[in-house]
Structure formats: C-alpha cells, structure tokens
C-alpha cells in the first residue's frame, strides 16, 4: 500500500481537483444564471448548490488524505504508454473519419492503438486493421444503414 506516514497524494489530488471544480461551477453558475425567487427556482440555483456541496466534499476528501489510510481498492500504477496510444488513436479517428472515410480512419486507429502493447508486429497490425475496417463497414454501413463512406470524405 501507500506510505502510511505522510498524506496520500492521490487522495489529496482528488480532493483538490473536485474542490476546484466545485468552486468553479458554483462561481460560474451564480454569476451567469438566475437564482430565482420564492417557489420559482431559476436555472442558477441547482448548479450553484451542487458546486458548493462538491467544493466542501473535496475539502473533506483532501483532509482525510492526511489520516492513516487503509484502502480496499488498490489503484493501478500510472502507465503512460497505453494512455497516450489509445488517446491519440481516438483523436486521429475523430479527425480522419469524415475527411478520409471509414477504411483509412480505421487503419490509422488500429496502427496507433497497437502501440499501447509491445512488441509491434507489422503483419498482424495490417491484418487486424483490414479485418476491423471490413467488419465495421459491414456492421455499421450495411447492417445499420449508417451514413458512412468507405473511402473519401463525407458528412460535415
């Protein structure tokens, strides 16, 4: 488990982030949306209250991080490689789907997503990309009548 003498950094970070988010929401909502009066609550009331409660809970979580910790959930270690590979794969797919079409976008997604694992096997990747593109074309464009083009831009 984590070091028991000092603050649990993960909890501290979680509390701080949640608190900051809560403060932002409460501040933004109270500045921009009406609070309402009497029985007629405005659009600002609910988010402001939620933001305030969240900010308080965030502080509580952060304070708890200084107490001795006995967690039941062991968090996995941070691994940047799969995180970056899969995030990039999704981003590239979003960029290329409407511009290049389903097949090229799928090929790009596959080629980048497989970087999450080592070793890189080029033949397997190509086969995988091809079959995935074909499969998704059959399911989504043919089976579900989605507006997709196999090659070339569309939509927009």
């Amino acid at each position: 488990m984590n070091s028991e003498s000092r603050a649990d950094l993960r909890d501290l970070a979680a509390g701080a982030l949640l608190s900051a988010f809560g403060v932002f929401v409460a501040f933004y909502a109270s500045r921009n949306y009406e609070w309402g009066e009497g029985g007629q609550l405005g659009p600002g009331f609910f988010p402001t209250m939620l933001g305030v409660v969240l900010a308080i809970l965030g502080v509580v979580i952060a304070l708890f991080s200084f107490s001795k910790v006995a967690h039941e959930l062991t968090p996995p270690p941070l691994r940047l490689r799969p995180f970056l590979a899969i995030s990039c794969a999704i981003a590239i797919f979003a960029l290329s789907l409407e511009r290049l079409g389903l097949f090229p976008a799928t090929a790009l997604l596959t080629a980048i997503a497989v970087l999450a694992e080592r070793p890189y096997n080029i033949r397997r990747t190509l086969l995988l990309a091809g079959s995935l593109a074909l499969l998704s074309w059959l399911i989504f464009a043919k089976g579900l009548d989605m507006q997709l083009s196999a090659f070339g831009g569309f939509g927009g």
Partner: protein
Amino acid sequence: MEFLTTLLGNVSIGLHEALTLTNLWYCFVGVFLGCLVGVLPGLGSLIAISLLLPITFHLPPTGALIMLAGVYFGADYGGGTCSILLGVPGHPAAAVDVLDGYPMTKQGRGGIALFMKCIASFWGSTVGILLLMCVAPILAEAGLKFGPADYCALMFLGLMAASTVGKGSPIKGVAMMIVGLILATVGTDVNSGVQRFTFDLQDLSDGIGLIPIAMGLFAVAEVVTSTGKAGISAVTQKFRLRDQLPTKEDWKRSFGPMLRGAGLGSFFGALPGTSGGMATFISYAIEKRISRHPEEFGKGAIEGIAAPESCNNAGVGTAFIPTLTLGIPGDAIMALILAALVIHGIQPGPQVMTSHPELFWGLIVSFWIGNLILVALNIPLLGMWVRLLQIPYPLLYPGIVLFTCIGVYSTHNNAFDIYSLLFFGMAGYAMVLLRLEAVPLLLGYILGQPFEEYFRRALLLSRGDFTVFLTEPIAATALAFAVSLMSWSVISFVRRRAK
C-alpha cells in the same frame, strides 16, 4: 383469484408482444452479443450495455429494450464463465464465481461448474421475474399517488445508496455522484430555456451525450488500464456435453443453496445500491456458515456456485421493480436502461405500465425468454465461448476502441461525440488512478435532469417552502433512510480507516 386473472392477462399481453418473430430475434441478438462481450475478461455488463446502446437507436422502442435487457443478462452470465474458467472475474459482480468455480476448473470439473451455474442462474431469474410480475403492478399503482417531493426524495435515496454502498470511500462516491448531477445540467435548461455551461458551443446545447460518457468512463478507461498486462492463461480442458453433466450428489448439494440464494437475491435486488455483487457475497457467506462441510468452500464446493449465481439472477429480476414502476433505478445498469427508455421517447414512471402495456409486459416476458435462450446458448455451445476467451488481448482491444468510436459517432453522425468520448476516456483513466468511482457519476448524470425537475416542481407546489420534503410522509421516510445510510457508511468507513 382476481389477482391471478390479472396476472395471467398481463402475461398473455406480454407473450403476444414478446413472441413476435422480430422481438424474438432482438432478444436472441441481445443475449448473444451480451454473452460475446461479457465473456471477455474485464468487460462487464455495464460496458456491454454502453457498447451496444448505440445499435439499439436504430430499433423500435420495444425491440430496443428487449435487446438491451438481453445484453444485460448475457453479459452478466458471460462474466461468470470467465471467472470460472480463468480465475479472473469477467467483471466485479462475477468475482464470487472465482472462489469455487476456478478450483473446480483446476480439478477438471469446470464443465460441471458451468452447467450448474446455468441451471442456478435460470432458476434465480425465474424467481426474480415472477416476483417482478406480481409486485410491479402494486408498486406502480402506489407510485401514481406520489408527488414531486416524494419522487425527488426517493431519487435522492437511490443516488445516496448507489454512491455510498461501494468498496471505496463513501465521501468520494457522493462527490462523484454530484459531479454527475453537475454534468447533467449542461445544455438547455428545460424550465427557462437558458443555456447552462455550454460556453457558446453549439454541440453542447443538447447537453453532453450519455453514450460518450458511459463508453469513455467505462470502456475506454478499462482498455487503457488493461493493455500491457501479462497474458491470460489458456484453457486446456475439453467441454463436451457429457463433461458438463453434474452427478446426483452435485444436484442434491445445490438444491438448497439455489432456493436460499434466490430468496436473498430477490430481497436485495429490489433495494437501491446493492448491485455489484454485494448480495452474492452475502449468500456465499451464508452457505459457508450453514454447510456441513465448510472446509470445502474455496476448494471447489458446488454450493459456492449455485447459491451466488441464483442470488445474482434473482436480484437482476427484482432490480427492475423500482426501475420500471417508479422510474427510480437502483444502480447504474438500471439507470442506463431507463436512459434508453427516455431516448425512445418514453417517460419512465408508474404510468408506463398503463400507457404502454405491450411494451411493459412484453419486456418482462422477454426477460424470461432471454434467460431460456441463455441456457440454450451456453450448454451446447460452451466450446465456442471457451475459444472466444482465448483470443489474445492485443488482438481484441483495438477492436473495442474502434467500436466505441464508431458507436458514439453513430448516435448523431457528429465527430464532436468522438471528442467527448476521448475527453471522458481520459477523465475515466484519471479517475481510476485517483480511486474515484465512475458508477455514481453515471448514475448522477442520468438522474440529474429528472431530479432537478422534481425538485423545482416540488418547490413550486409548496411555494418555495423547503420543509415540504419533511412534511410529506413518503419523502420524509426516504430522506431519513438516505441520511441514516450516509451516516452509517461514513462511520463504518472512518472506523475501517482507524484500524
């Protein structure tokens, strides 16, 4: 007597609807796809439902819900198969199957474990569904008399229960639930037409999409967490039909546990926040306590499969009671099913049963048919699922990522949804690292709009008097439960820490 005739009348409405060829087909496809996704390690029913939710957009409402329910049953079941054969829970709720199922596999009795699981789950489901059929009309009738304050308080109870009864910190659970409620306010406010938190982005005026949130937080985050891990051991056993048949002794030992499991599961399933395998572990513990040979538990006792499995499936049936009659889901999966109702233009609540009887009863009858299909798919075709389990993860996960991307795109044909998916995928991974649970967030997000709606309506009716939540008896009771639940879980959490 009158009760029985009404029940039979309702069942016949349901049979009429569920037994049409198209609906049978949707049910079959749902169960099949559910099994397919659920049997893969790490992919549970929540992920299976969010992955397949976009597909159901293209179907008529009844067909869509029948298919989703099928996916749920299939995925829930498939998770247990993975637990028994690989010793790795397919998803957290199936973790209990590892305890005795995996030892049985190592003793060469894996086929028997799977067979008994199939029977126990079918038995449990039957009990749960029968209860659902009997209790739902009564609760729906009561639900018609509830006011907005009552609904608001009941939703609050559901939200609190789902976010505090977990493994992690209850305070974090509530915080995540509130984040979900906040995310639900994004978009056009129904009452005033004001655009909230859209930051002048046209794509946000309808709010954040449910599908990108669900898929990002669960599917994408799960893929990122699981890639790069060590490979999974192979299954070498053969699974012909005669390897699966339990002995007379097995049957005798499983009978009692199945009965008790179903009873326990039915009770817990109907309560909010008890999903995720809590009841199954309780049922396992009870069987171990009363067994004449408790030393066999954990080393391949068949009771350790029969009881939790029947408990789990009975609970699945009764979990639909508050969801379908009051529109108040007890867990995130039920919330997703509710969201599917809303997507198809059906406002959940006690009036569904009277305004859409064919949908309501058709859906319930199809639950049972789905479980029948499950038995048919799993006993003879076990070999196929076993082979599926052996697909190496590196070949699998790019497909999952691709499927999530196209799935979210298909909901609006808009690339913005893929960017939302990316955002929530990254957030989901960060939440895993920070030990923040995603389930309460999703539940809060789905219930956010009706919750705020009921809250505002309740205050409108009481002319701004906040004590309405304390003077209405049902609302006050629900709030009292919510508060005591919260204090109980915080106290036990703090005690756990102090040790």
